């Protein structure tokens, strides 16, 4: 019994996207497909307990879910009811066609691109991806984003309704649209990772469930699109960043800066894998933004210590990244690299150049970085103001404790 439940949990995590994606094509409707897949998991518990776990649980679940979807379609037809069908699904699947287990098409990419269609708002893309591609329940997604369950349920229902009513197609975009559309998919996965990496609110710095899901998604995308360099870049970025996860806080949950982290505890296996991916993501020319961010993470991962980091290389990579992706957050990180290479005063000057960007107005790291540079320049009063500004912008407990401690240091020199 325990073994069956374990096999089911494993199949849910590893096969959900494949099973659902293959079922959508037959059901022609996301809601019906989801119900059929859920039914298949329920049926699996009983059948597998009785007859043992099949050799290929994913194929068993897919066949069961697709058969259920066919039943629903036949029933709807006999009731002469017309379900709003997705564009790009099989209009009239032939049951006699009975694809062999190995012949079931891998539709996971169709599912991913539909969930991340640009006609859907970013928060809807994120919610749909977690729900349909990762198989999370609405309450799990609501908890991850700190909204109420009815709010999240309404968001998901609205998005699914738009897919059907506006006829968002269930397909992988054509080659000329792929770079833009893929960027949206990668942005969603990266957003999931960063939301988990530094939880915007709450006690813990890292929300492991979201981080793990983002890594699963990046690995899956790499499996189905092995030649896409930006997919490789994203997976490398997540692996190299996540290699440091265990060392980002101390035993008491206090935030540790890069310079304070115990590098011997970084996940070497993830670093080796990430570095190999970066190498191939950067070549032959014109690397994308995820590959460049991964390359920066790789420089840090390779350095034996903070002081021995090749900061000139980091700065050079930020210069290229800023040209490819002129984001104020990139400009902020570049200013940090300038401060290390050239000193706090040039760093502060680079920071001042972007200080008025409205996109950074609510970004706590601008004020926190400014505070740090002012502190190092001995401008304690200005530093104190900046620490206060940073404190007012973050609700993460670990980050707040860190900032409050620094604020105490600059306002009470005897304690420093």
């Amino acid at each position, binding site marked *: 019994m325990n073994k069956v439940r374990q096999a089911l949990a494993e199949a849910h995590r590893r096969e959900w996207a494949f099973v659902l994606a293959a079922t959508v094509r037959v059901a022609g409707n996301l809601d019906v497909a989801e119900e059929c897949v859920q039914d298949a998991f329920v049926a699996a518990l009983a059948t597998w307990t009785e007859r043992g776990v099949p050799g290929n649980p994913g194929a068993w679940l897919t066949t069961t879910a697709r058969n259920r979807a066919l039943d629903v379609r036949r029933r709807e037809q006999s009731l002469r009811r017309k379900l709003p069908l997705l*564009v790009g699904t099989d209009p009239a699947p032939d049951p006699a066609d009975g694809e062999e287990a190995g012949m079931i098409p891998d539709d996971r990419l169709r599912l991913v691109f539909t969930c991340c269609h640009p*006609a859907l708002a970013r928060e809807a893309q994120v919610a749909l991806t977690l729900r349909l591609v990762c198989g999370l329940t609405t309450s799990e997604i609501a908890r991850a984003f700190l909204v109420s369950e009815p709010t999240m349920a309404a968001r998901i229902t609205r998005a699914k*309704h738009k897919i059907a*009513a*506006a*006829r*968002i*197609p269930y397909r992988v975009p054509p080659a000329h649209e792929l770079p833009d559309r893929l960027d949206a998919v990668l942005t969603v996965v990266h957003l999931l990772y960063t939301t988990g990496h530094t939880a915007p609110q709450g006690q813990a710095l890292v929300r492991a469930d979201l981080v793990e899901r983002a890594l699963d998604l990046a690995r899956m995308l790499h499996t189905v699109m092995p030649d896409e360099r930006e997919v490789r870049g994203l997976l490398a970025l997540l692996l190299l960043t996540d290699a440091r996860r265990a060392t980002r806080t101390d035993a008491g949950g206090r935030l540790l800066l890069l310079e304070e982290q115990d590098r011997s505890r970084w996940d070497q296996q993830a670093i080796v894998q990430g570095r190999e991916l970066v190498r191939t993501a950067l070549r032959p020319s014109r690397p994308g933004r995820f590959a460049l961010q991964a390359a920066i993470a790789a420089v840090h991962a390779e350095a034996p210590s903070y002081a021995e980091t090749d900061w000139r290389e980091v700065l050079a990579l930020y210069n290229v990244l800023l040209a490819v992706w002129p984001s104020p957050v990139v400009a902020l990180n570049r200013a940090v690299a300038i401060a290390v290479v050239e000193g706090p005063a040039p760093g502060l000057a680079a920071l001042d150049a972007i200080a008025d960007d409205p996109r950074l107005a609510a970004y706590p790291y601008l004020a926190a970085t400014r505070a740090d540079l002012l502190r190092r320049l001995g401008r304690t009063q200005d530093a104190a103001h900046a620490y206060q500004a940073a404190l007012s912008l973050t609700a993460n407990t670990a980050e707040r404790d860190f900032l409050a401690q620094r604020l105490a240091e600059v306002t009470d020199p005897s304690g420093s």
Partner: protein
Amino acid sequence: MAKYLLLIYGDETGFAEPTPEQWDWMMKAHGEFAQGVAAQGGQILGGEALQPTATATSVRSDAAGGDQTVTDGPFVETKEALGGFYLIEAADLDQALAFAKQCPAPGGGVELRPIMDTSGATPPGA
């Protein structure tokens, strides 16, 4: 195929009294748009240019549907006014979006609304 209403919004002050050059440009741009849609497998089922919002009159009903008041002006006052529309047929939203991008809307933009299928006995999607 699916039907969409393509609503063209823009700052109408620029086109309140078009010069002959502007007029020619607009006629040519819309002619090319119509040809392009047909060439790409879509269809234009209808479409019109609208007189400026200064000529609009609105009839508003109260919640109970009783009292009706007539006022001068558009239903919603916005900087970017509705200036024209097309009713188009496209394979899916991706094709409709491609048409929307080709639709002349200088200094403004286009809103795409899927048309509701009212032919069934039950509400669509129910």
